[in-house]
C-alpha cells in the first residue's frame, strides 16, 4: 500500500475523488440548508460566510445543492455502469465463448446499436420511457451495453482457446462454470478499466442530458440539472455554474487518474 502512494496518478486521483465523494456522501444524510426551500431575499446572492458558494436564482444554497446533486449524479453513474457491465458481460461472455451463428446475429445487432452515439441512444430511450432519475439510469445503462459487449466478447474469444480453459473443461467443468468461474477472474483487469471510463462517460452523459432538459427533473438537484439552470444567469451569477462545473471536473479527473494509475492497471 505504501508503494501505491508513490504513484502520482493514484495519489492525486484518490485525493480529487475524495474531495468530491466525501461531501457527496455527507450530502445524502445532511446538507447545510434544504435543497428545495426558496428564499427570495437571497436570490443570486454571492459567496458569503453563511452561503460559501452563494445562492441560485431561487435563493437556494448552492453548496447544499451541489452536495445533494453530486449524490444524484453518482447514483446515476454507478447504476448505469452496473446495468451496462452486468448485461454487457453476460451477453459478451456467451457470444464470445460459443461463437457461431448466435454470435454473428448478436454482434451485427450490436454493431447497429454501436453506430449510434450512446448519448443519442439514451435520448431515444428517454423519449420512450419518459424522463426522471430511474428512467435516465435505465436509459443510459442500456445505451452503454454495446460497448461492454464488445470488450468482454473480445476477451472471451481470446480466452476460449487457451490451455487453462481446455484443462478446466477436461476436469468436467460445465460451460457456465468455465465462463464465469474460470475465465471471468482473468478479465476483471480489463473490466475495471472500462468500468472507470464508463463511469466517467455516464456522469458526463447525465450532465449532458439534464442540461438538455430531458434528464433529472426539477426541483431534484443533479450536477447537470444545476448547470442547465445556471446557463440563463451565466453573466448575473457565474457562481451558479462554477460550483457544479468544478465539482464535475474534479470528480471526472480524479476517477480518470485512478483508472490510469499503476495500482489498478498492473493488477
Amino acid at each position: 500500500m505504501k508503494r501505491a502512494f508513490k504513484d502520482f496518478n493514484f495519489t492525486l486521483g484518490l485525493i480529487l475523488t475524495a474531495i468530491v465523494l466525501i461531501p457527496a456522501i455527507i450530502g445524502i444524510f445532511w446538507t447545510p440548508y434544504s435543497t428545495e426551500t426558496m428564499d427570495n431575499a437571497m436570490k443570486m446572492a454571492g459567496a458569503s460566510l453563511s452561503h460559501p458558494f452563494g445562492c441560485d436564482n431561487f435563493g437556494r444554497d448552492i453548496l447544499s445543492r451541489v452536495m445533494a446533486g453530486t449524490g444524484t449524479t453518482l447514483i446515476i453513474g454507478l447504476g448505469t455502469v452496473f446495468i451496462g457491465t452486468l448485461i454487457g458481460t453476460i451477453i459478451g461472455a456467451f457470444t464470445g465463448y460459443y461463437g457461431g451463428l448466435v454470435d454473428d446475429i448478436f454482434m451485427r445487432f450490436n454493431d447497429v446499436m454501436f453506430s449510434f452515439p450512446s448519448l443519442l441512444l439514451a435520448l431515444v430511450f428517454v423519449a420512450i420511457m419518459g424522463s426522471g432519475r430511474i428512467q435516465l439510469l435505465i436509459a443510459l445503462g442500456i445505451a452503454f451495453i454495446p460497448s461492454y459487449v464488445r470488450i468482454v466478447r473480445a476477451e472471451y474469444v481470446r480466452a476460449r482457446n487457451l490451455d487453462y480453459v481446455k484443462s478446466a473443461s477436461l476436469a468436467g467443468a460445465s460451460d457456465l462454470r468455465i465462463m464465469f468461474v474460470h475465465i471471468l477472474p482473468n478479465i476483471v483487469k480489463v473490466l475495471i478499466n472500462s468500468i472507470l471510463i464508463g463511469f466517467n462517460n455516464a456522469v458526463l452523459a447525465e450532465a449532458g442530458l439534464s442540461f438538455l432538459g430531458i434528464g433529472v427533473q426539477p426541483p431534484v438537484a443533479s450536477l447537470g440539472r444545476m448547470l442547465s439552470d445556471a446557463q440563463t444567469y451565466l453573466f448575473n451569477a457565474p457562481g451558479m455554474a462554477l460550483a457544479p462545473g468544478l465539482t464535475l471536473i474534479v470528480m471526472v479527473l480524479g476517477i480518470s487518474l485512478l483508472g490510469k494509475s499503476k495500482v489498478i492497471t498492473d493488477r
Partner: protein
Amino acid sequence: MLLHVEDLNIEFHDHIVPETVVYDFDLDMEEGEIVGLVGESGSGKSMSALAIAGLLSRHDAKKRGQILFEGTDILGCPRETLRGLQGDEISMVFQEPMTSLNPVKKIGWQVEEAMRIHTKATPEERKRRALEVLSHVDLDDPERVYNSYPHQLSGGMRQRVMIAAAMINTPKLLIADEPTTALDVTVQAEIVKLLKHINKKHNTAILFISHDLSLVRQLCGRVLVMKGGYVVESGNTEEIFNNPKEDYTKHLIDSIPKVNLDE
C-alpha cells in the same frame, strides 16, 4: 478393454476445402497399459488424443469412427455423460505447463477443481486430498505450493501440479500430450519416472504422446508411429526400435541425438 478406438477419422471444415488430419486411427488399450504415440509435428497425434478425451468441439471438426471408453461411446454420447467421465475417469496433461494453469487462481483451487465437480467431498477433505496428490508428485512443500499462484512456480513444478490435478480422482486413463517437451532434460526424466510410478501405483493406463523416442522407449510397452495422419507402424516398443519396418520409423530412430562423452 479400457479403450477401443476404431477407424477414427478427423476432418476440419474451417477452410473452404475440408482437411483430414487423422485417417483410420485404431487403438486398443488395456487397463494399466502404457502406450506411446510418436510422430513429427502435424502428424495428427494430438488431434487423436483430443478426440479420445472428448475435447474436440463439435462444430470445428467432423469425426467418423468409434471411440469406446469402457463401453461408453465418446463421440456419440450426450455432453453430460462426457463431462461425467472427464476429470473423473479420463484426465489429460498438456504440453505447455506455462499456459495450462489459470493465472489468477491458486494452485490448490485448481488441483481441487475436478474433485469439486465430481465428488461431494467437504472443503477439508478436498484440501487433504489435494495436499496428498501434490506430495505424490514429489513436490517438496505441498502446503506452500497449495497456496501459490502459477507464476510463483517453475515449469517443472507446474507440470507436476498438472499431473497432480489430473490424478486427483485417480482416473483410469491419463493422456499425456507431450508433457515433457517444454521442460529441460533433467526434469523430463523425472516426469517420466513420475508417470511410471503413477502407472504402477494406481494401475492408471497412460497414453503418452511425444516426439522424443528415447523417452517413449523408457516408458512405453507398446508404441504407435504416426505420419501425415496415418498410423504407419505399431507394436512392441523394443521390436520396433530394434528392427523398424517402415523407412519413416527408421528415420525417426536415426534422428535421436547420440551423445558419447568418451570420444
